[in-house]
């Protein structure tokens, strides 16, 4: 038997650090399989299956359009039908919310894997986030149907949309990693996260345009990174009827990256004890 010197693996306290990122790449097959599993089982044994991905945001959109548009009488951006304004904001919000909800609980849901198999643990919340992306693309179809219905067409700016999708993912990933890691030891976060998501839905400009916020408070309001993401989505999709508040977007992106950095840092710091405490 010949031995491959390159395959020398050294296990020492605190050692796994150096090979972490290359390991993450080596385990991409597992990442794909876990993502596929989460997607495959998501709507198993439900009657209407993936329609749930459509129904949830659609119903919220109907309610928000009625309450914010009709009852509160808030203005839309330019000539955009209020329902489209709401739905364009709802898309990134639901992407963020499902991701945070699923990914932060994913480690605990996969206790068996964490306790019995080695792999870079970031794969689990990462794979869980992929599910929210699938839901996102399904509900995207609804937006297009609505645009057809209202006869409202986006312009060339829609090409910028991938940038904001990525920004939305980054915004979601930071807190997902942080809460996911915290959840392993402190199950308190299981109760905190739904609250954060519910609260965030009203704090972020989902049901209304961020232009209703007065100039004075706009920058402070942009500290919520989802504000920038939602504004970005509206800017891309609403054919220039919606303005992009650039300082706010940059500030939000900085906050998102700060969260991502802290999420990764915290995850890495606690990861090695996951198997012991989960």
């Amino acid at each position, binding site marked *: 038997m010949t*031995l491959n010197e390159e395959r*020398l693996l*050294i296990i020492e*306290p605190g050692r*796994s650090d150096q090979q972490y990122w290359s390991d993450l790449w080596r385990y991409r*097959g597992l990442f794909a399989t876990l993502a596929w*599993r989460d997607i495959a089982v998501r709507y198993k044994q439900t009657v209407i299956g993936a329609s749930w991905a459509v129904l949830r945001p659609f119903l919220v959109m109907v309610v928000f359009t009625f309450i914010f548009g009709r009852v509160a009488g808030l203005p839309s951006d330019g000539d955009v039908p209020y329902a489209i304004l709401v739905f364009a904001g709802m898309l990134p919000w639901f992407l963020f919310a499902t991701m945070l909800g699923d990914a932060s609980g994913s480690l605990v849901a996969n206790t068996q894997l964490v306790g019995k*198999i080695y792999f870079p643990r970031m794969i689990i919340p990462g794979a869980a986030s992929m599910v929210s992306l699938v839901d996102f693309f399904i509900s995207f179809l609804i937006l297009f149907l609505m645009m057809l219905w209202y006869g409202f067409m986006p312009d060339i700016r829609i090409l910028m949309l991938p940038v904001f999708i990525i920004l939305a993912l980054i915004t979601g990933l930071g807190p997902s990693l942080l809460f996911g890691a915290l959840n392993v030891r402190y199950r308190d976060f299981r109760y905190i996260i739904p609250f954060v998501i519910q609260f965030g839905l009203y704090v972020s400009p989902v049901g209304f345009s961020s232009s209703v916020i007065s100039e004075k408070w706009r920058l402070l309001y942009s500290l919520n990174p989802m504000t920038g993401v939602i504004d970005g989505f509206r800017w891309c999709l609403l054919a220039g009827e919606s303005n992009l508040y650039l300082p706010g977007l940059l500030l939000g992106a900085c906050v998102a990256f700060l969260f991502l950095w802290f999420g990764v840092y915290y995850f890495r710091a606690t990861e090695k*004890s996951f198997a012991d405490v989960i």
Partner: protein
Amino acid sequence: MTNIVIKSEDLGKRYLIGHDSTKGRYQSLQETLLNQLRRFSRSARDIIQGRLHVDGDVVEEFWALRNVSFEVEAGSAVGIIGRNGAGKSTLLKVLSRITDPTEGRVEIRGRVASLLEVGTGFHPELSGRENIFLNGTILGMSQNEIKSRFDEIVDFAEIEQFLDTPVKRYSSGMYVRLAFAVAAHLEPEILVVDEVLAVGDADFQRKCLGKMNAVAETGRTVLFVSHNMAAISSLTRSVLMLDRGEVIFSGPTEQAISKYGSMTQASNVLNEAGQKKKGDHTNIRAARLLSEDGTPLATYLPGNRFKIELEVETDGTRGLSCDLFLVDEKKMRTALGSMSHFEGSTLPLEPGVYTVLMTFEPINLASGQYTIDITTSLVNHSWDHYIENALSFEVLYSNAAGLAWDHRQEYGYGNFSLTFALPTLITHVAHTEY
């Protein structure tokens, strides 16, 4: 070039256990509040710094592994044995990188696959086919490897018909067969296996053991944890024995097994705490479990004689008998031995203290723990002095002949002693189709 594939130096793993020093003590409200506040601020500090947080204000160290050093040569099969809590599983977890050691260092050359449990990651909602791919990837196989072995896996598991059924509808036997089948088709350079053979029915266990044997014979390195001494003795040439986190023996399998046997918790002297009923006419004063040559016995090798020596005091009542129950791990009485009922003798009519020596003919017992209830009985069949768990012993493996498969208690009390005559040919058959 060295041939060592695993080299462990002073490996240690520490766990912290927290205690609450104030628990159960009277506290004033002010004290309680202060303690809560202190605890809260400490938790908050631990969370923010990403440190492991331990409940309670007194933290105790517990070393699950300490100073563990050993070497494993390429192509060898090494058994790891020890009592529950000896650190075997922790060692496997460290070697498979699931948990970080606290101190020491391990060098491993080659691809490691660890099998700490069968069916890790199986998803109940997915079909058998999907789970083969899922579980295979989790165990470290590539998609192509799984595809090329797919048919073999299905064959091995014997689940062809149910490939597209969600595994939550599988019987537990099918589930385990499928799970093991995937694991058995892993082909890493180093295979680390925890007690996974303790699943499935007897037939399937034999099949698994055969598969493990085949893996070991192809020159792959196997680390194998088991309580099943028959499996250890048939699969491995050398053994690492752990006790309370430390290596207490490392060497040839036969020596290790006999040493393991002598460490057993079995008790060959009377356990007086087991007294259930005091005797009116008799008193069992002592009891010893002995091997045929009269040495104390703690582990019994099926196929040999053994003896029990009792010291009994009697008041001379007519028809008193000494009886024994053999009790298995599930507390089921599996066999009765009796002076009067089967042998037609009784204790002497002269009051006094007597030694009663009983010799047992060889019994082919299943492996596992046994206890013996000792009792004296009156002629009307009521118990006089009754001592539960009076003696205990262990059968390390059922197979005195040294065949691989170990017959454990769940498959019955023991096996028959059979003598086979050579099969005689009745007639030649041209083709064999059943």
